[in-house]
């Protein structure tokens, strides 16, 4: 999971996740998609390598981020399938905003994810 930020002057920066989560604590699935992130060795480097393994290296992420508007950010997530906790995940992501720019999820899952992100926040949440 990598966070990319394009600052106000147009410079793209990447922030690699640094949490240490063992594999067996990771959800399976599309939740996998977001929560079941691939931390092969549960390290930052592993997350980057996992992304690089599917062709998403730092260069690509920086180039991609440079095309965003000033003062925006992007989240690169590599996930597993399938998941038992899709609904819980979508609920948590509801109303957070954001646009799914690229995904290898099925059209249905991508639509559900986008709908959740774009949905208005629930009162009290």
């Amino acid at each position, binding site marked *: 999971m990598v966070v990319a930020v394009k600052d106000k002057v147009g410079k793209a920066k990447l922030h690699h996740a640094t949490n240490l989560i063992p594999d067996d604590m990771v*959800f399976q699935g599309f939740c996998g998609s977001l929560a079941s992130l691939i931390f092969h060795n549960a390290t930052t480097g592993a997350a980057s390598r996992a992304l690089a393994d599917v062709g998403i290296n730092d260069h690509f992420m920086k180039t*991609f981020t440079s095309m965003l*508007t000033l003062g*925006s*950010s*992007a989240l690169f997530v*590599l996930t597993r399938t399938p998941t038992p906790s899709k609904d819980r995940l979508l609920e948590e*992501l509801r109303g*957070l905003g954001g646009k799914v720019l690229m995904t290898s999820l099925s059209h249905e899952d991508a639509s559900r994810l986008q709908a959740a992100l774009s949905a208005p926040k629930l009162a009290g949440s």
Partner: protein
Amino acid sequence: MTHGGASQTLTSMPSKRLRGGFSLTSKNDSRLTPAPAASSAGGACAQAAFLQGEASFDGTKGVHHCVIEACRAKEGDASLNEFVRSGTARLSRIPPTRLPSSAVDPKAANSKKENKISNLVVVAFDEPHQAEEVRLKLQKLQNE
């Protein structure tokens, strides 16, 4: 400690994936049943099945046979080793010709990998801090 010349305990094996194949034979022993889903296989084989192996039961001989294709170091290993040491279960190397198709056939192995294929999701946000917020939220979900 182990049965037979070719036998060995799981701890002496490679930590992530076994080379070749190993067969595990045991008499039914309820103490070995680790998970309800695997209990039908019974005994040590259930334990092995739990560790991503394949198990079957030979009713005529009253023993369980299984082939452990992959074994990861988990809590279950310790108890499985205990049974191997005590003689309840026997773990021995088997020739590649007797391995299940998925262990020797690259296509079958690939199809298993495809089931675990990962998905990429890239989400863009209007604010520079939003992506980090979402990442933290996902991390929190992971921890739960």
